[in-house]
Structure formats: C-alpha cells, structure tokens
C-alpha cells in the first residue's frame, strides 16, 4: 500500500510541476513580452516600463518561474494587477461560491446517477431502462450553458420562483445563498448525471454476469441481496474512474456556469482576469484548477485501493 501511495504521489508531483511549466510557457514566454500582453501593443512605453519594474518582468523567464514556484511554497501568489489585492485573498473569497457549486453538483449527480443506473440495470431491456437511457442520451447532448438558460427562462422568467442569477453572499442568509445556487447546481449536474448513469448501468450489468454472482445466488441469496452485497461494490470501480475524470468537467463547468448565472466564483474570476489581462490571477487560478483535477484523481486512486483489495494487497 505504501509503495502504491508513494508511486501515485510521485506521479502527482510530476503532473503538477508539468502543469506549472506549461502555464508559465503559454502565458509569459511564448506570446513574447508579458508586459505587452498585459497592456496591449498600443500602450505607451513609459507605462510598459513601469509595469515591468513593478512586476519584475525585466528579469529572465527562468528566474521569474522559480520565483513564482518558490512563492507558492510560501503560500504567496503575488498581487492582482487589477484589484491590487493578494491573489490568495481573491481566491479565498471566490471559493465561497465555487466550492458549494462544484461539490453540490457532484453530490447531486452521484446520488441521482447511482440510483438511475442501478434502476436501469435491474430493469434491463424494459421500459424503465429505455427511459433512463433516453434521458442520459439527451443529457449528453444538451450544452450546460443552454440548459442553464432554459432553467432561467422557466424558473426565473416564467415562474418567478428562483433568481435568474447573481449571488448575494452568505452574509445575507444561508437560504438566500442556497436559492441562488440551486439553478447553477442543477445545470452543472445534468451532464455529469448523464455520463455517470450510463457508466453505472453498464458496470452493474457487466458485474451481474460474473461467475461470483452466480455463486452468491447458488448460496441462496436473492437477486436483490446478490446485487447489494456482491455486485455494487465491484461495479463501483468504473464509476469511480469516471467520477475522477469528470472533476475536470466540473472545473470547466464552473467557468461556464458562473458566467451563465453571473456568479462571483473562481470561474468568473479567471474569466474577468483574462479580459483584464491580469496575468497574476490567470496563471495562479489556472494552476489551482489543474491541481484540483490532479489531486482528485490522486484521491480516486486511493479510493480504488479501498474498494478493490487486489490493488491494495499484492499477492
């Protein structure tokens, strides 16, 4: 187990460092002079010179990269050029919106898709199965931003039940915050649910055909008992895999959904930072996103080992 963990951790470190190099190259080296990138080619020379000095952009790229990473280890991400506050502080504020949104969507999608997937598998080739598969086929094809717009039209414009966007902040009361996040969470959950439902269904169907399920039935377990005690845990491995991969989708999704619903989260932050050419914010938030994706997949690997003893214990 410890060898397994060490190996996974090493590959995690490699991936995150690789990601930081790519981000740095794409933002500060390949496009040319970062000062020009930030201010545009029409900016007066004096302004460009000023920003160079202010942000230390006159130093060689390699030094700036090392400086950035060293700062990260001290927990510093530099100042936002536009907001003039530490990037860490900005990220902290925005997480109040993005985290509940992402986690809420993931939890909702997991609950719904596990139930739907198991339901479809146990009703294989019957009407319920076809219904669930039709729903998930549609869920895969609907772009999340359009689904969000449709939800706004229905629940905000027509029914007036929920706000069409914006976020009042948690200080205005938990309920108001939850209300503003409801449509975004549904929107985000749709695509995730569609994919995870399909995977759950086919995984349950596949495991149900295994010899050991027949053994369980030969012992006298009912269909239902065999499903709960023998099929589900084995069927969970592919669902976990997809769940891990979908974290990338969630990260991307927050970017889009926070724009649809005008939510002040990380996705909106990064997006505004691009419009404002706020490189400090862009590079750190993108790295944070990449790191989240990698960390979650690291956690998923550990979960595998918990679910499947064949990974945990080498014979």
């Amino acid at each position, binding site marked *: 187990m410890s060898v397994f963990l060490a190996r996974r951790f090493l*590959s995690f470190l*490699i*991936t*995150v460092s*690789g*990601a930081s190099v*790519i*981000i740095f190259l*794409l*933002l500060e080296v*390949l*496009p040319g002079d970062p000062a020009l*990138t930030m201010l545009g080619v029409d900016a007066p020379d004096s302004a460009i010179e000023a920003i160079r000095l202010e942000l230390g952009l006159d130093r060689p790229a390699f030094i700036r990269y090392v400086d950035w990473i060293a700062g990260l280890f001290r927990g510093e991400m530099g100042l936002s050029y536009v907001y003039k506050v530490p990037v860490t502080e900005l990220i902290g504020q925005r997480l109040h919106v993005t985290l509940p949104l992402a986690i809420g969507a993931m939890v909702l999608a997991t609950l719904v898709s596990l139930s739907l997937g198991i339901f479809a598998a146990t009703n294989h080739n019957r009407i319920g199965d076809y219904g669930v598969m039709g729903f998930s*086929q*549609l869920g*895969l*094809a*609907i*772009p*999340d*931003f*359009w689904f969000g*717009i*449709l939800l*706004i*039209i229905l629940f905000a*414009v*027509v029914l007036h039940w929920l706000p*069409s966007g914006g976020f009042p902040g948690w200080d205005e009361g938990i309920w108001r915050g939850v209300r503003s996040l409801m449509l975004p969470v549904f929107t985000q959950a749709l695509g995730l649910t569609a994919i995870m439902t399909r995977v759950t269904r*086919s995984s349950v*169907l*596949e495991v149900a*055909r295994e010899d050991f399920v027949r053994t369980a039935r030969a012992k006298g377990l009912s269909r239902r008992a065999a499903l709960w005690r023998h099929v589900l845990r084995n069927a969970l491995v592919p669902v976990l895999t997809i769940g891990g*991969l979908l974290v*990338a*989708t969630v*990260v*991307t999704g927050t*970017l*889009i959904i926070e*724009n*649809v619903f005008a939510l002040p989260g990380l996705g909106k932050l*990064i*997006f505004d*930072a*691009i419009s404002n*050419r706020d*490189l400090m914010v*862009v590079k750190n938030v*993108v790295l944070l*996103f*990449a*790191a989240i*994706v*990698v960390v979650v*997949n690291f956690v998923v690997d550990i979960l595998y080992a918990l679910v499947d003893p064949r990974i945990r214990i080498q014979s």
Partner: protein
Amino acid sequence: MARMTSIDPEHAQGAADLGFVHRALRHRSFMIGLVLTGTMIFLALLSLIWTPHSATEIVIAQRLKPPSLSHWFGTDQFGRDILSMIMAGAQTSIVVGLIAVSLGAAVGISLGLWAAARRGWTEDVIMRLSDLNMAFPVILIAILLTAGWGPGITNAIIALGIYNISVFARQVRGAGIAMWEREFILAARAAGKGDLSITVAHVLPNIVSVIVVQATISFAIAILAEAALSYLGVGSQPPNPSWGRMLSESQSYIFFKPVIAVWPGLAIVLSVLGLNLIGDGLRDLVDPRLARQR
C-alpha cells in the same frame, strides 16, 4: 478456439460487410443519428450557396420578429434571420470539429500505435503526457491561449486538437496493446515481420472501428466545446455566425424574447445527439457482444 484466434479477424471479415449494412439499416437509433447528422451537414453545405436571408446583414427594422413565413425561426436583436444564422453556424461547428478531430486523430493514433508496439519508456512518456493533458480540460487550454494571444477561433481549434491527441493516443494504445497480445500477431512476429509492418498490416486495420467510434464522439464533443467557447466569447468572433455566440447574445433578451434562446440550443442538441447516436450505433454494430450490455 485456438484455431480461430490465430486468424486475423480483419481479413476473415470481408464477406460480413453486406451483413453490416443490413444490420445498420435496421439499427433504429443509428439511423436516427445518420439522419440528424446528415441534415446538419446538408444545411451547412447549402448555406455555402444559399440561405433564406443573409446571415450577417443587420436590418434594424426587422429586429426581434416572431417566427413567420419569411423568417421561419424569427429574427434576432439585429434583425438577422435566425434560420440563416443557424445554417451558417453549422459551418463553423463542422469546420472546427473536422480540423480538431483530424489533428488529434493524426497525431494521437500515431502516438498510440507507437506506444502499443514499443511499450517501455515510450509508453510511459506518452501516458504521462496524456495525464498532464487530463489536468487541462479543453476550455482551460483555450482560455490560457486566449490570455496569451487574444481571442479567436484558432484557440478553440488548437485546444480541441491537443485534447483529442491525448484521447486518441489513450484509446489507440489500449486497443493496440490488446491486439498485440492476439495470436495472429504472435504468428506474424514468429514469421519475422517487423513492428512497423505488423502495425500497418494487422494492428491498425483491426482497431479502425475503435478509431471511427472515437472520432464521432470527439466530433460531438468538439461541437459542444466550440459552442461553449463561443458562448464565453473566446471562440469564434463576430460577424462569423456561431451557435454558441447566438446563445450568449440571446441571453440579454430572455426576459422579453425567450424564444430566440431556443433555436441555437436545439441546433446544438440535435447535432450532438446525432453524432452520439452514430457513435453508439457503430459500437453496437461492430461489437455485438458489447451491444447486449449497453
């Protein structure tokens, strides 16, 4: 059974091709997919020579008209004909999808085949690169590119291409490794054929179905991603018509003209649905064993 596995299935298949067409014609969801995708391609091609109205001309007098005989889907906030914009928008989706998938497929398939044939460190490098790619979802790459170079459709194409490289490399590697373990390849090896000639003669032809299925699904993903990027304003730029941007523009009017947000969304859903149905159908048709569990 051993006798069966030492025959290259690709070369044993020839006679079954007619059966494939017959089965395809009876596969309902596959045919629905074909019709949907066919319609999209037809509309895109038609828009090259003819659209009901100009897709870009601004006619303020005609703005936000409801559907009528002359404007089937109505007009938008600038008086442009929505149907014409959707037809022209299909071009953008198809062009972005085609370039991104071809780019990804060309590089990804080569890398995947290489990794499957050579294993060892080449495989490690390729898999680590594709891990790295996983940390950067398409939209994130596109945004990084936009931050560095400014907005444009090229960013979307490059981002999708990079993403597809890793998808194809992974898929082809997996399927390729499975092929390399089959007995007919061992036989070819025993006969003294080299890695390259075995790859070209036996591995590639036998994983074509995997590649075609992945290509349709990647195409669908590309359409969704292009729409998302254009919606965010970092994809295709005005006046070039695009479904995603039509949606982002319509959002300002949903309080008094919600219906204009419906058409471009439907166009995306039907195109993506069509491609996904084709992909799923193909998977059923080439591998009936898998079909049962899906």
